[in-house]
């Protein structure tokens, strides 16, 4: 058995730089095999999408009345995954949360790639993808314009704003770190980092404007992140379809987004900690706090499930009640109960402080949360469409291999991009780790993570 790595529990600024920059050293064959595997899956998904564009949406399992299914589920799932990044980078920044410094860059990077993945799905879902720009207003000779009363148009604005602002916020945080990486790099990497650092030198003038802009960007990103998933939820809630038409959708979706997003951060960080040898940057303190966020949001989501059921019963609308009866006990009822198990029951284990620092247990729990949250979206989106107002229209849905492989491809695309980022750009913020070095030292001294 390999000896446990010796962890420096009193790191200096220089030690932090070394730990972060070590992650960016040239990778071995196993890494490239993994990246190659991911992009092979992306290639297969892209080929199937091409075929779908050529043949039409008939190659999918989408049939009336279930015209929104796996693709839109994936869109909502990936937008949700993105939310934890902004929570950690912007909202917790405004609250001056100390533990966020070690995890914020990884979470923010996840946000960028998750939104980039999510943004593909409305396009994949389009029958004639080359007309995607019809969602946006532009001058045309027929004076045709989108209807701003439609939540789909709000969504186009919200998601594209979210991607742009997250990318700018992320880039801003990266500049001082890339400048730092530039100093020790050699060869093509030196040129690469020199160009990306844009001449950053850390002068008082630069830091003064940077700090103010960073604070304001965090202030802008905070309401933005809450608005984006609210707008996504209104894609459903604004329709009169039973199972969708609910006023609780916005907070319910935002809580679910943060829940799934933080779980995904943990799913990625736990193996990364071991594989990249960064035990000296990620401690019990970080995982314990992330687990508490997962637990809290799990309770909020559970409360939303109960409220949703109560409102349906109390309102007394027979169609709505029938939809929910189908959701709980219909042919797809098992999905609902898988979702309850993964999102409401299993996370209760996080009440145990011992489990919150057991990385193996945490990893398994967060994977269950990811599965549960994917099912939640599927149950709400496709499940609600199977049983509509008219029983004569009821129909089931079976995903085609095209939809399944494009879904698998989206995970590969996300993981492939994330893996590439880890090796070429700083996945931890050296600047922020140094700013919070006192807290990191305290955390390292108390660290007793098990089953690493």
């Amino acid at each position, binding site marked *: 058995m390999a000896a446990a790595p010796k962890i420096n529990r009193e790191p*200096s*600024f*220089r030690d932090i*730089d070394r730990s972060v920059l070590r992650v960016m050293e040239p990778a071995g064959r196993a890494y490239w095999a993994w990246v190659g595997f991911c992009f092979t899956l992306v290639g297969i998904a892209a080929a199937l999408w091409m075929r779908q564009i050529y043949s039409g949406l008939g190659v999918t399992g989408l049939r009336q009345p279930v015209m929104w299914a796996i693709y839109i589920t994936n869109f909502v799932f990936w937008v949700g995954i993105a939310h934890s990044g902004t929570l950690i980078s912007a909202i917790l920044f405004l609250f001056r949360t100390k533990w966020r410094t070690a995890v914020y860059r990884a979470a923010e990077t996840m946000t960028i790639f998750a939104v980039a993945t999510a943004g593909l799905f409305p396009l994949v879902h389009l029958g004639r993808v080359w007309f995607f720009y019809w969602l946006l*207003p532009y001058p045309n000779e027929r*004076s*045709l*314009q*989108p*209807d*701003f*009363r439609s939540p789909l*148009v*709000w969504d186009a*604005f*919200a998601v594209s*704003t979210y991607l*742009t*602002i997250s990318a*700018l*916020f992320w*880039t*801003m945080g990266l*500049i*001082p770190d890339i*400048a*730092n990486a530039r*100093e*020790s790099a050699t060869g093509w990497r030196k040129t690469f980092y020199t160009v990306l650092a*844009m*001449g*950053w*030198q*850390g*002068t*008082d*003038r*630069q*830091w*003064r*404007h*940077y*700090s*103010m*802009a960073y604070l*304001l*960007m965090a202030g*802008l*990103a905070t*309401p*933005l992140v809450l*608005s984006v998933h609210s*707008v996504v939820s209104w894609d459903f809630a604004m329709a009169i379809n039973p199972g969708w038409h609910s006023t609780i959708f916005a907070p319910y979706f935002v809580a679910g987004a943060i829940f799934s997003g933080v779980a995904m951060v943990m799913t990625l960080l736990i193996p990364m900690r071991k594989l990249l040898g960064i035990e000296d940057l990620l401690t019990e303190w970080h995982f314990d706090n992330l687990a508490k966020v997962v637990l809290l949001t799990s309770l909020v989501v559970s409360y939303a499930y109960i409220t949703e059921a109560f409102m349906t019963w109390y309102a007394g609308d027979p169609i709505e009640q029938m939809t929910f009866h189908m959701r709980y006990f219909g042919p797809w009822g098992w999905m609902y109960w898988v979702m309850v198990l993964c999102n409401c029951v299993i996370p209760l284990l996080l009440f145990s402080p011992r489990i919150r620092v057991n990385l193996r247990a945490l990893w398994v729990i967060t994977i269950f949360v990811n599965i549960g949250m994917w099912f939640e979206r599927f149950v709400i989106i496709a499940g609600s469409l199977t049983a509509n107002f008219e029983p004569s229209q009821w129909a089931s849905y079976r995903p085609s291999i095209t939809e399944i492989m494009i879904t698998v491809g989206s995970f590969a695309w996300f993981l492939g991009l994330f893996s590439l980022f880890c090796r070429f750009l700083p996945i931890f913020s*050296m*600047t922020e780790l*140094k*700013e919070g070095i006192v807290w990191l030292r305290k955390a390292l001294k108390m660290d007793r993570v098990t089953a690493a």
Partner: protein
Amino acid sequence: MSTIAIIGSFADDARCANAIEELRAAKVGEFNTFSPIPSHRIEHAIGRKKSPVRWIVLAGGISGVLTGLAITIGTTYEWRLNAGGKPLLSWPPFIVICFELMVLLGGIFGFLGVLGLSGIPATEIAPGYNGRFGEDRFGIVVRCDEAEAARVESMMRESGAEEVVREGV
């Protein structure tokens, strides 16, 4: 009398801020600082006003709201769609677009503002810059007359500089 640069390197921002306060009180030459992290101590010691980037963000936010109103109202009048007898100008949905554009333009203006005000992209390295200032050292570069050099050096050493060197400018 020729101008020279004196570069002091400090192990922490407290000592660096002390030296800045001493130099400001003595009114010797112009100075510039480098640090691996933003430091409130250094910012207070230098005593500059708050960054004007906040006004740029405000301007971006206001432009975003106005752009949102122009797009929603303009396109609605261009394509007059009667949806269920609702008023032509449906303000609540327009708020969503105005809000998103406020954040979008506020953020873009802020990002470009910080680049412009910070002088980046920069192709030249500031005199006295050293890679360690991005890593773990805080630096002060004073440009002064050669006659004052000895005084500046001793002020930096007394404030706790680890290393003080001279460079021609």
